[in-house]
């Protein structure tokens, strides 16, 4: 489904990604984890065809990212980067994902399709709500609905927990778990939240400009690898909330330390 070989990206003298190789099977839930500046977002941009690569190759669903029809990908950006002042409703945002253009007007059939996508993420009642009136968690769900309305094969998320509260974060991960397991959608999620990655993702990719580890999330994010990436082992200092663990049922995950 995804094969990255010897990927190198440089910004002047800075090497953001150095000879990174990994592969991912369809239906997996991958977390791309690493500290700030480790090349996570650069990798995501490469996968989306937004970043020129210096060497290496990427094959996503059998295409290079530039040639991949965008209808096969659902993308959820960071909510904190969005322009909340833009005059639009949730429904319009979802329809923009279906059309891949901004809608001037929305016919009833398209409106119904957008509402169905919003119901799928539990916010069908917010269809006419202005984006400026949504909470961070609600806006994140609208973006999820927008991505899912395309019935994508791959869902790509950029730091989805940023800018939303703990409850909304848990709700979002519940939706992602359901989308991954019940709909079979492959998920690639960039996050600095290694705890969420351990609890929710089947696989992980640990970066610090070079590839430190890849594979099933628990061994990939073990203490030794975390120490290499972050300079310390993955202790749960900052997270007051808990994560359920759909990929390790019957084997509750205990954060290290």
């Amino acid at each position: 489904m995804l094969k990255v070989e010897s990927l190198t990206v440089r910004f002047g003298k800075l090497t953001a990604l150095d000879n990174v190789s990994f592969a991912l099977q369809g239906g997996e839930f991958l977390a791309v984890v690493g500290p700030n500046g480790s090349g996570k977002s650069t990798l995501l941009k490469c996968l989306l065809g937004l970043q020129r690569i210096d060497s290496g190759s990427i094959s996503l669903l059998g295409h290079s990212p530039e040639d991949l029809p965008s209808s096969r990908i659902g993308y959820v950006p960071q909510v904190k980067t969005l322009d909340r002042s833009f005059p639009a409703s949730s429904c319009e945002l979802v329809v923009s994902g279906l059309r891949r253009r901004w809608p001037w007007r929305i016919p009833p059939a398209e409106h119904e399709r957008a509402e169905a996508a919003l119901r799928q993420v539990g916010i069908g009642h917010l269809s006419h709500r202005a984006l400026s009136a949504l909470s961070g968690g609600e806006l994140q769900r609208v973006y999820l609905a927008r991505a899912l309305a395309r019935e994508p094969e791959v869902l790509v998320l950029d730091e989805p927990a940023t800018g939303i509260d703990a409850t909304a974060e848990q709700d979002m991960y519940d939706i992602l778990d359901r989308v991954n397991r019940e709909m079979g959608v492959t998920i690639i999620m960039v996050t600095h939240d290694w705890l969420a990655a351990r609890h929710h993702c089947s696989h992980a990719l640990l970066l610090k400009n070079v590839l430190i580890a890849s594979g099933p999330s628990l061994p990939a994010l073990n203490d030794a690898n975390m120490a290499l990436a972050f300079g310390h082992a993955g202790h749960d200092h900052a997270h007051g909330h808990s994560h359920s663990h759909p990929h390790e049922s019957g084997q509750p995950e205990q954060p290290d330390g």
Partner: protein
Amino acid sequence: MDSMLAIFLRIVACGMLIGFSASYYGAFVVQRGMSFLGNGLAHAAFGGVALGILLGQEPLYVALPFTVLAALGINWLREHTKLAADSVIGLFFALSMALGIIFLSRVPTYSQDAMTYLFGSLLSVGVTELWISAALAVLTVATFPLWPRWAYSTFDRESARIDGQRIRREDYLLSVLIAVNVVVAAKLVGIVLLSAFLVIPAAAARLVSASFAMMTTLSVGIGVFSVAAGFAISYQADLPSGACVVLTQILLFALMFALNKGGIKWPREI
């Protein structure tokens, strides 16, 4: 010789056509946070006008390529540096004004044209200006199919790129069209008040619009009405045209602000 009524109608028609184009692009200018671009391009037009006067040519024909080049230069420099948009626009603003002042200093006689472009004049509205305004309005209508693309990249540039939009090319086109609008409107409204003319209708529309389609429609409505009304007041009361237009727009902005405070938005939010 034209009757007074014919002159009046020509002025109002010209105002409506220019108001239509400027306020349509104004919706994108305001929502993209590029309000200073109108100011920068208006002053770039001044440099072009001054060069036209110095060369003894019709200022409009020199200002047009001059301002379009400035618009392209602003976009290019933004792309190739890490400077903020207002810094780049400010640089071109200052460069154009400096060149304009030098060009005018080399003109041996006083030029009424320079004053016309600085403050606007309805006396300059002839049949040629009417045709140019009509051509501009037709050009604006021809860009309507681009509205969904420009609106999409206005909201979220990254998603627009992922969905295959060539946003760099589209940005250049939008800037060039805004530059053409600025030059055509400069003679009637005046460079000094031109950026308000581009921004106020859209800003007023934003206050009561719950969708970008409604914001664009209302902006055009406010733009057409205020320019026509402003020109009519200017003609009847013998007051400067640009000032009359801007004051009419400010009145409409105040009305929209009152509606906004009254909780009124279209389409209705739930």
